[in-house]
């Protein structure tokens, strides 16, 4: 079926929400309270549109499409409505955008640029509220910047069902808060920072680190567990320094993580910035190593299919017994996103028929003279006696000869998650100093 939006026909399905149709088709529709994975709340009125045949403007987030609906999102009348709503939102706003961390990705700022009134009608003083309140779990609140869209409250009441956030007071004294002695405390808490359309909720970890317009984003996948949540890696390279990853943001995927991440995964970007040094840079060194008799290799189950495939071929060619062992952490999983299997690609290991038998691995280890470790954590801090140990590693290793390779921020690859979903991730655009594993193995041939 078809509807008409600003005189352009758009295909859609009976029963879809108008705002979803607009968002999915790239029609600009300002909105604060609606969020595709939190659903409608209808409290901000920012998504007003004109609908032919209806006397008053309607909110798009509570309108279902029907055949031949004629919608206008841009008329002068609608702009006037938006201007008034924004005026109301900003009555008590501190207008501290220059020092606000959200600047550049703030909906209030964006919409005001488009529909703002620019002249104040105000002659009474603004209501003052709390600033930089530590809510717990790395979340900071500025009550004066809040537009009371309730996204954060709906997240803690409907999604995590922990209910820490709420509104206290009423009228222009209404503000978001946690109850005294009941801080924000759940392993998904930092999602509220990303959900907040304005600068009211900011992350202690990211605030004041970087202006968002300096950041680039790469589409990637969290390697924290086998859920494989979709992320954006936000990174930047400033003059005379290496590229640095500043944060992970959720990338919406309806099949997997919706618009959310767990806090552990969200903060796991830090590993990507860790500096460590190779103990060798020469391919020749390995060629020497390869002459050693009796070799065994262990590959990390978080490597991509492409990397695992290359390792497998390399090992077959050099008659090295190859194993991979899963990362299992019984205390990690929960009943939502987090999974005890902390390997990003264990399903991929199985698909490539790489042996995952712990006993076999330990037996071959006993006989072996040389162990080649392809980034598996097990061998990074543990040195088997009377063996030579060689690492291709993305992080620091305590023993053995280490050859640094590019981490997943610098790789393109494919992973298979715990539900068998095959997903691609992409590298950031800057050059990495360390070589990519696949190319390195190619050279070693």
């Amino acid at each position, binding site marked *: 079926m078809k509807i008409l939006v600003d005189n352009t026909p758009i295909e859609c399905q009976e029963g879809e929400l108008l705002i979803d149709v607009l968002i999915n088709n790239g029609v600009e529709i300002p909105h604060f309270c609606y969020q595709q994975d939190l659903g409608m709340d209808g409290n901000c009125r920012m998504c007003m549109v004109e609908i032919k045949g209806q006397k008053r403007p309607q909110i798009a987030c509570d309108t279902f499409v029907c055949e031949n609906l004629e919608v206008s999102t841009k008329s002068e009348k609608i702009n006037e409505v938006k201007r008034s709503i924004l005026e109301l939102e900003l009555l008590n706003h501190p207008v501290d955008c220059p020092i606000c961390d959200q600047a550049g990705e703030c909906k209030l700022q964006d919409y005001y640029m488009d529909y703002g009134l620019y002249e104040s009608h105000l002659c009474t003083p603004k209501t003052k509220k709390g600033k930089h309140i530590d809510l717990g779990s790395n979340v900071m609140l500025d009550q004066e910047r809040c537009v009371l869209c309730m996204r954060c409250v709906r997240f803690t009441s409907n999604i995590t069902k922990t*209910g820490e956030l709420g509104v*206290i007071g009423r009228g222009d004294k209404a503000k978001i808060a946690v*109850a005294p002695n*009941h801080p924000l405390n759940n392993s998904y808490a930092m999602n509220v920072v990303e959900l907040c359309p304005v600068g009211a909720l900011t992350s202690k970890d990211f605030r004041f680190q970087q202006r968002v317009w300096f950041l680039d984003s790469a589409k990637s996948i969290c390697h924290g567990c086998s859920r494989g949540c979709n992320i954006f890696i936000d990174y930047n390279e400033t003059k005379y320094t290496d590229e640095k990853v500043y944060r992970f943001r959720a990338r919406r995927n309806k099949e997997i993580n919706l618009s959310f991440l767990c806090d552990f995964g969200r903060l796991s970007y830090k590993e990507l910035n860790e500096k460590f040094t190779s103990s060798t840079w020469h391919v020749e060194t390995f060629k020497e190593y390869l002459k050693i008799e009796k070799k065994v290799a262990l590959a990390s189950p978080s490597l991509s299919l492409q990397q695992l495939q290359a390792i497998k071929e390399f090992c077959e060619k050099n008659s090295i017994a190859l194993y991979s062992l899963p990362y299992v952490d019984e205390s990690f999983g929960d009943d939502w996103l987090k999974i005890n299997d902390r390997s990003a690609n264990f399903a991929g290991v199985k698909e490539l028929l790489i042996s995952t038998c712990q006993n076999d691995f330990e037996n071959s280890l006993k006989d072996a003279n040389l162990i080649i470790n392809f980034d598996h954590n097990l061998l990074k801090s543990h040195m088997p006696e009377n063996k030579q140990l060689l690492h291709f590693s993305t992080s620091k290793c305590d023993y053995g000869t280490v050859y640094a390779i590019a981490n997943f921020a610098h790789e393109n690859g494919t992973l298979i998650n715990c539900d068998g979903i095959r997903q691609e991730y992409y590298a950031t655009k800057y050059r990495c100093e360390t070589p990519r594993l696949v190319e390195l193995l190619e050279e070693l041939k």
Partner: protein
Amino acid sequence: MSFSFNETNNLKIELLSKRYPQKKALILPLLWLAQKQEGFISEEAMVKISELSHMPYMHIYSVASFYSMFRLVKNEKKVVEVCRTLSCELNGSQVIKKHLLENYSDKYEILEVECMGACGGAPMCTLEGKYIENVTPKMLDEVLNAN
């Protein structure tokens, strides 16, 4: 410090819970009972209400903070509420308020409130929840000094 409702209130709660299809609906009546019992609503009382109504603590706190007639801190002084809505205003609540503020603000907590539904006896005020109607400065002196 823990909070529990007294026996009479527990009986009332039992009756109340039968009245509503959802436990959530108990929040307002329970907040009232707690306030009547202790004079204010303590954190412990809200924890208790959160258990009884099966709602998160923050939700109870949020409801309690919405209504200005709920007190969340214990008053050191006795509370006198003076009505400032139309009927009382027309019948001289200004004088009453002035008299209260000038003479009794040390000993009593004086609060301005909206219509208490006793317009027939305007102007009016309350002392610790008890209505004093057709109130005059002289009456106030008698009642408040006696307390």
